[in-house]
């Protein structure tokens, strides 16, 4: 799957996982920070996103530093999935 296709798929999954009812995939900037700025997500959302990666793509984020880097934006998540995802 091309990176842009993966990003669109991931946006839809994030919206569903986090119950972002008023947000559409088009509202999410793939390069914008997911936390504090951008979507304004918080630490509970971080756990939900870690779960999403585990359940949907078999990726376990156990190192806190790596988790911060991967969950920085939709694009960084998509790049990890492209590299490691099952």
């Amino acid at each position, binding site marked *: 799957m091309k990176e842009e296709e993966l990003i669109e798929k991931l946006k839809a999954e994030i919206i569903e996982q*986090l*119950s972002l009812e*008023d947000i559409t995939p088009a509202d999410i900037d793939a390069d914008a920070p997911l936390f504090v700025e951008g979507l304004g997500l918080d630490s*509970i959302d971080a756990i*939900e996103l870690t*779960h999403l990666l585990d359940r949907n793509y078999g990726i376990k984020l156990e190192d806190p530093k790596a988790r911060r880097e991967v969950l920085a934006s939709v694009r960084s998540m998509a790049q990890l999935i492209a590299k490691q995802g099952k």
Partner: protein
Amino acid sequence: MQAYINSVSLISPQLTHDGSFLTHPLVNELACVMNCVEPVYKEYINPVALRRMSHVVKLGLAASAICMRQLPDVRPEAVIIGSGLACLSDLEKFTRLVEEYKEETLPPIPFINSAHNTVAAQIAMQHKLTGYNITYCHHFLSFESALRDAFMCLSEDMQNVLVGGIDERTSDNFHIYNIAGFWRKEPVNNLDLFKGSYPGTLNGEGAAFFILSNEKSDGSLACVTGVHTLLLPNSTIEDVNQELEVFLKKHSLSKEDIDLFILGRNGSNVYDSLYGQFEEEIPQSAHIAYYKHLCGEYMTSSSFAMWVASNVLSSQSLPDILTFRRGSRQDFHRVLIYNQALGKEHAFILLERA
């Protein structure tokens, strides 16, 4: 002790949250369940917080907000809730996830919401009410337990308390009670609930909130003067009548002094016979009302009845949709709510005109 009802709110399967229920009662076309007519939650709950809330939390927060908005200057010193099932749906979800994820790390939100006191805690956070905060999960006597605690708070040093009765329908709970034959097997129009003789009733839900005060105000709707519960398996009508007599005597009253009896008859021939026997000894001049055809059966449905009672006492009129037998009394001075479940959990709530 007198607890004045200074504000009320109710979210139920009727249009009760916006006040149009009495003119537009809804008919639940052929169903075995009755779901709440929900308000626009964003008008009452922060949208960012809303996305993590389950159905029962949304019901509780919105109903409590409606209640508190009517008295913006009042800061309740306690939040006391009765809920038979509390946040059971989140617990159901959470336990399913434990199995699905093979006991590894779980999504946090169903776990966070699964505590029994979640609704009361969220109300406290939303309104910054840092005082006493508790939830009673006492099966079909949960609301009455909350009410009794509210009485104790008001008799000590508190002036205003927020009291609620809340329960939602959950799929697992419906299934378990269905096995026990608690619900109707065939769908029924709710307004026909009392027609014919069938086992089972409609599964309902609702959230009612009241600001109770130890001081009467110009806007007081009614006054709760007593609450009494009886837990007695296989209880007979003699047990119930004896308990009621003692309860009323404590208030220097008898059945003759009650103008309206609101009964929790639910249309199931398994448990309604007790109500039938109870009705036989109600004075002919008194009015009798039912309410579960409008909200279904749930563990805190007596809070729906208390909402009805406070409206009848303040408006001095009993709507036809609630009336089973119209008596000859012209005024409504005292109302008695009698609700029982499974023939063993009985509760009386006594209200008077404010």
